[in-house]
Structure formats: C-alpha cells, structure tokens
C-alpha cells in the first residue's frame, strides 16, 4: 500500500504548491524539492532491495563482480542525474537540467572506457600483424 502513500504525498504537495505559487514562488520550489526527496526516500529502500537481490543471485551463480559493479553504477548515475535534472527543471532552469543530464551521460560513457579498451586490445591481438 505504499503506492497510495506516495500518490497521496504527490497530490497533497501539488495542491499546496499551486496555492503557494501565487504568494511565494521560492517556497513553492522548496516544497517541490522536499516532496521529490520524500518520494525518493520512500523508493530508495525498494531500489536497495532489488539491487541486493541482483547481487545475491549474481554472487551465488559465480558471476564476475566487476560486471555487477558496472551495472549498479549505471543505475545509480542515471537515477541521481534524472532526479537532480527534474528538480532543476521544475525550478525553470532548463539549461542547467540539460547540463546535469549531459554529466550523467558522460559519466555512464566513462564506465564503458575500460570495457572498450579490453575488447579493442583483444581484437587487435586477433588480427594478423
């Protein structure tokens, strides 16, 4: 029944923000941020549970830990970047939000660099010199 709590928090925050926006736009923005963080905190336990299950399954089946770590980093970077970008976008700063998304994309691509280098080295060794 957490979904009811979360939707309730969302609707309540929306009504309050609509009322507050006429008087104090700054406080409306703060309320938006607070509501977003609250919903994220509700979800963070569930996300941790999912990740823990994944990790346990991978460990028990003898999968490489470095793969798991890379995948978890991808998930974390994309969630955090998305969350921050949405908050900034709500405050009306579209350009900063796109910069945050750009940073998230770049950091995800950086995770690919060691993998790409190993694959390319292997392929180069396969090719006749």
């Amino acid at each position, binding site marked *: 029944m957490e979904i009811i709590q979360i939707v309730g928090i969302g609707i309540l925050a929306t009504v309050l923000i609509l009322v507050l926006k006429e008087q104090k736009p700054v406080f409306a923005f703060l309320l938006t941020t607070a509501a977003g963080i609250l919903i994220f905190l509700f979800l963070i336990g569930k996300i941790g549970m999912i990740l823990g299950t*994944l990790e346990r399954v991978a460990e028990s089946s003898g999968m490489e830990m470095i*793969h798991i770590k890379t*995948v978890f980093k*991808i*998930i974390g970077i994309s969630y955090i970047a998305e969350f921050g970008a949405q908050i900034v976008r709500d405050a009306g700063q579209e350009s900063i939000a796109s910069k945050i998304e750009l940073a998230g994309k770049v950091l995800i691509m950086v995770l690919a660099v060691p993998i790409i280098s190993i694959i390319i080295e292997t392929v180069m060794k396969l090719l006749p010199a």
Partner: protein
Amino acid sequence: MTWLGGWLHELILVVLMAAFVEMLLPSKSMERYARLVLSLLILLAMLSPLISLLKGDASKELSAAVRQQENSGWPGGGKGKGGESLDQILADGRRLAAGARDQSLKLAAEEIAGQMRDQIAGSTGAKGVKVTVALGMGKNPEAPLGQEVPGIISVTVVLPPPQGSAGSSTAGAAGGSGTEGSPIHIEPVKPVQISLEDSSGDGSAGQASPMPEDSVAAGAGSGGNDTRQASEADAEAGNIIRLLEENWNLDPGQIKVQSTGADTVKS
C-alpha cells in the same frame, strides 16, 4: 566441457541482468547510453574465453583497469583507495606540520628578540637597538629518544648610530631620552682616498690615512672623535654580549653585535 557450461551460465546471467536493468532505468534520455554500456558488457562476457586465451584473466584485467581509472579520475572519484594516495596524504601532513613548526619558531624568535631588546635597553640604556634571533631545531641531550627541541642558533644585535650610543652610554637613561627627540641622521660616507707614497698629501687623504679601519665611519665626525666612539662601541658591545650570555645561557660565539655607525663587528 565445464568451461563451456560456465561461459553459457555467465552469458545468460549477464543478458538477463541487462534486460532487467534496462527496465529499471528512469528515463528515455539515459537509456541509449546505458544500453551501449550494457551491450558492451554482454560483448565482454561473450568474448571472455577469447580474452582469457590471449591475455590471461579477463575479469582481473577489467577490474585493474577500472581501479586505475578510479584512482586517476577526478578528486572526488577516487576516494583515496590506493597506497600511493596514502603516501601522498602522509607527505602532505608532514609538510603541513613542518610549516606550522616554522611559523611557531618565527613567532617565538620575534618574542625572544623583543625581550632581549627590552633587557638591553634596561641595562645599558641604549635605544633603538635591533635584535634578530634565529631559532632552530636541535637535539636535546637530556631528552630520551633523541627528540628535537627548539634552541637559539644565533643572535644578532645591531647598535644604533654612534650619536645615539655615545650619548646614551655617557649619560645613561637621560641621554637616551635626549636622543629620542632628535631624528636619527646618517651622513653619507665621504669618498676615501688613500695615498701610499706620502702622508703629507692633500687634506682629505691626510684625514683618512691615520686610522684606516675607522675611516669608513669618518663621515659621522672628526678623526679624534672616531677612536673614542669606536672604543665606546666596543665596550658597549662587550656589555651586551655579557648580558645576553648571562641571561639567556648562550655561547659567546652565537652572539654578534654590529654597530651601524662605527661599523664594528664583534662576535
């Protein structure tokens, strides 16, 4: 056949996880990039027997590369995991500690110089004495384990010009108060001409020739006055050295007294 089973096992797991993670991703904009990295991971899992054949352990290679990337990444990314970063932190700490010690030594040297100046002014009545104290770390013979303790390396006392010192040494504290009113006035050194062949040359050479060591100070007064002032300055320097030796438990070799007017250096 076991390696084939293990390889298939891993491949299937990676593909399943990639599909699962793709659903977990929050937005469309990140999806393409995440999909690229996930597909690279699947490719790596597919190639892992080949990599193991050519380069040794594939996962070990990858984790070494990732660790190197983390360490050489930006300042917040590495978290200081490697041994070299620990060494760097320790070196930074030592450098900071040395800097703090140098600063405290400098403060203590200024404090000691002030106290010495007060003592010299109190006992000899000389005003305007400049005292410079150099402190350094030295071995403490009494302490166990060879700890280093700060000690006085050298003391340099610069006496005021002879008008002030002469007045104060003859008249004591009263003379000192008299010199405070008049500004310190240093005349430029006149050109010194030394004639070797004849003592009865022109006037300026005759004035300079009898006392060559005092001729530098000849600008301050006449020749007869110079010798008296020099001896007075010598006596005063001796007094100051004795005073500092007794009060501060120093070697005579560590104390250096310079008189700016008479240019005598005593140590």
